């Protein structure tokens, strides 16, 4: 294994270990951590050693899967915890992504101002952008929650669908806001200097020559670490909230609203809180998405990719269950990517026979995923990992 692959494996180590921590969550920490580290090393160095060819693909796959996992977690906070049928995930996703972009880029000046417009550009640090994205998505969610959250479930679904469409229309048509319909480009990637020959000012001189073997195109390895840390943070926060009194109150409202109300739980504000929380998380996912893409425009936030897929992920993985949300994200993203391979192959294979049909092969994926959602609803609506009834972390878990 050459030094480049060794280095890449080291980058893979952190996400792999975190994944191990998640997988072994049933074990106590003094067993869990060593096991996770072992698993992490095996995975990271194993892949680097035996499957170096697909390493790059695995990394880019995992980054998108993790962003989708965060989206699923956000949707779970709305749907799984509190029964909000949110068909407007794409809207909060877009708000988060564009807020991030506006915060961390600088406003185009001089010659560039003729080609690209945006409302403002603060050239802010990455973390500020992420926080701003979350807050903005939360604010939007809070504002729309007032008039629509009390509607019955099917009306809420239609309303959220409509709002996501309006948000997309705004980003598509308002040039002054985010250069719509043109893309916003040049979104800076955090810590990109690390892979640019290791020329970061804050890196100790001893490490620089080691890192110099990395190229800018290996940035995704570093970004994988960043998004995995983001996912871990979101997951930990959500899990803690689920087991808190707040989480119990939420589930009480979801399952037995009248009874919860009679018990003094402030139903309306609890519902708004879970809705806003979910939106914040979805916005954070958007903030992680924008720098990875470097260039974003309204077409990234159409309902297929940014709402529908997330629902399939959550339904498959298990709604009401955070681990299920993450599992669903990975599985469905794998299915989606896999169908991409299949349709690419079909497209080439049919090129000679029926070029018209060949060019449309990509739509086969839509049909397939649509069918998949219908099948999941029909045969396993509770998902792969059904919700475990968690009352309190102080109670012993019941034997299943």
């Amino acid at each position, binding site marked *: 294994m050459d030094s480049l692959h060794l280095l890449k494996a080291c980058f893979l180590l952190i996400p792999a270990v975190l994944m191990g921590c998640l997988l072994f969550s049933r074990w106590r920490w003094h067993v869990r951590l060593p096991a996770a580290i072992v698993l992490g090393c095996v995975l990271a160095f194993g892949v680097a050693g035996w499957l170096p060819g697909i390493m790059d693909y695995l990394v880019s796959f995992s980054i998108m899967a993790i962003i989708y996992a965060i989206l699923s977690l956000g949707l779970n906070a709305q749907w799984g915890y509190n*029964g909000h*049928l949110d*068909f407007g995930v794409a809207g909060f996703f877009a708000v988060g992504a564009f807020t991030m972009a506006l915060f961390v880029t600088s406003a185009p000046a001089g010659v560039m101002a003729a080609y690209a417009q945006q409302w403002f550009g603060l050239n802010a640090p990455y973390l500020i952008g992420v926080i701003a994205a979350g807050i903005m998505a939360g604010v939007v969610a809070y504002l729309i929650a007032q*008039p*629509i959250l*009390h*509607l*019955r*479930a*099917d*009306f809420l*679904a*239609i*309303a959220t*669908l*409509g*709002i996501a*469409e*309006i948000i997309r*229309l705004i980003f*598509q*048509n308002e040039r002054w806001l985010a250069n719509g319909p043109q893309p916003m480009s040049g979104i800076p990637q955090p810590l990109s200097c690390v892979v640019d020959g290791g020329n970061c000012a804050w890196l100790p001189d001893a490490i620089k020559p080691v890192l110099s073997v990395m190229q800018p195109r290996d940035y995704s390895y570093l970004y994988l670490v960043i998004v995995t840390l983001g996912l871990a943070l979101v997951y930990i926060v959500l899990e803690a909230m689920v087991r808190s009194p707040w989480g119990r109150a939420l589930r009480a409202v979801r399952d037995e*609203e*009248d009874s919860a109300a009679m018990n003094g739980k402030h139903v309306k504000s609890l519902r708004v809180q879970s809705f806003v929380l979910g939106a914040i998380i979805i916005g954070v996912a958007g903030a992680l998405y924008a720098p990875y893409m470097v260039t974003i425009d309204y077409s990234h936030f159409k*309902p*297929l990719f940014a709402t*529908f897929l997330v*629902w*399939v992920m959550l*339904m498959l993985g298990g709604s009401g269950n955070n681990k299920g949300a993450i599992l669903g994200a990975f599985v469905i993203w794998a299915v989606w990517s896999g169908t991409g391979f299949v349709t690419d192959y079909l497209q080439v294979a049919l090129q000679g026979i029926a070029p*018209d*049909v060949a*060019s*449309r*092969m990509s*739509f*086969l*994926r*839509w*049909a*397939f*995923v*649509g*069918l*998949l*959602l*219908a099948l999941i*609803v*029909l045969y396993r*609506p509770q998902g792969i990992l059904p919700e475990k009834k968690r009352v309190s972390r102080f109670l012993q878990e019941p034997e299943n």
Partner: protein
Amino acid sequence: MVDSANTATSGALPGSPDSPDTMTVDARDSGGARSSRFVGGVLLLVLIGMWVAGWLSGTSAQDMLSLTAWGVMLGGIIALGGIGLTLCYGVLKFPNFAHGEFLTLGAYVTYGVVLVLPQSNPIWRFSFGWELIVGLVLAAAVTAVVAIVIDRLLYRPLRRHQSPLVLLAMASLGMEFLLRGIVYLIWGSDFHFYYSGRSNPALSLPFGLRLQADQLFVFALAVVLVALLYWMLTRTRIGKAMRATADNPDLAQVRGINTEQVIAWTWTIGAGLAATGGVMYGLASQMRPDMGFVLLLPLFAAVIMGGIGSAWGALVGSVIIGIAMQLTSAFLNPAYGPAVAFVLMVLVLLMRPQGLFAQR
């Protein structure tokens, strides 16, 4: 589906010894919703406000009148899709997000037929010939079959399991993408016209209005179909059975109504009407594979505004939506049409969730 408490329960429950013999109809009914007249008045004010806004932004009164007329015509198109949706929504109780695809399917199957059949001369001043009518009938049949097959394979098993309506809605979302993918696969992503290259001049009407004969035809067709549907629902046995099933499916079974048969008829009529709507939309504007999705929001807005299950409600709601969408193009980017429809829908939902023409 959690029927969240957006209506407060009144004091005396019907059936209790204390309830009066007849319930008085109040400005706010027992659920806290405003009366139809109030909501209608608000909507009228909104439309007038749009007129003023358009006029203030420089559009002439004549143009505003034209926009209003086109809005009514657009309302006719939306209504054709809307009456099918309101029927299905009312009987089956869940929002069928794939309903838009019945429009798309209807339009494209007709297109296929029109391509195959020899082109005939246009009828009167319309832009279409008999081959379109033939295509339409065939497309309505095909779409109805598709709807029934989907119901048998997907929605009926879910009904049997007493699945919450939320799951049916989600399943229908899956069907939306499945059907749309299939349309894209068969016909591609280009836009098409039924009769490309055929001129379709507008008729000159009083008040300086210029409307195409096609547009008038579509509107007239919408009114006729709405009237027919209303007649069917109120005067025929099967129509009343549909209303009964929509009202209380369990009781309908107890009374000996075969609810599954009623549901099959509902899908047939609803999908057939939708297919007609799709053809008319394709005729009046153009065929695009995402037409179903583009129209989905205005369709739901019209149906919800008019009151789910009401045929006339769907027409009135559609016309209001159509006018609003056209009027706002005078002072807003026309791309925001669906946004306007949506805002109006939310407005009505806040004032009167059951819609303008609901009976409860």
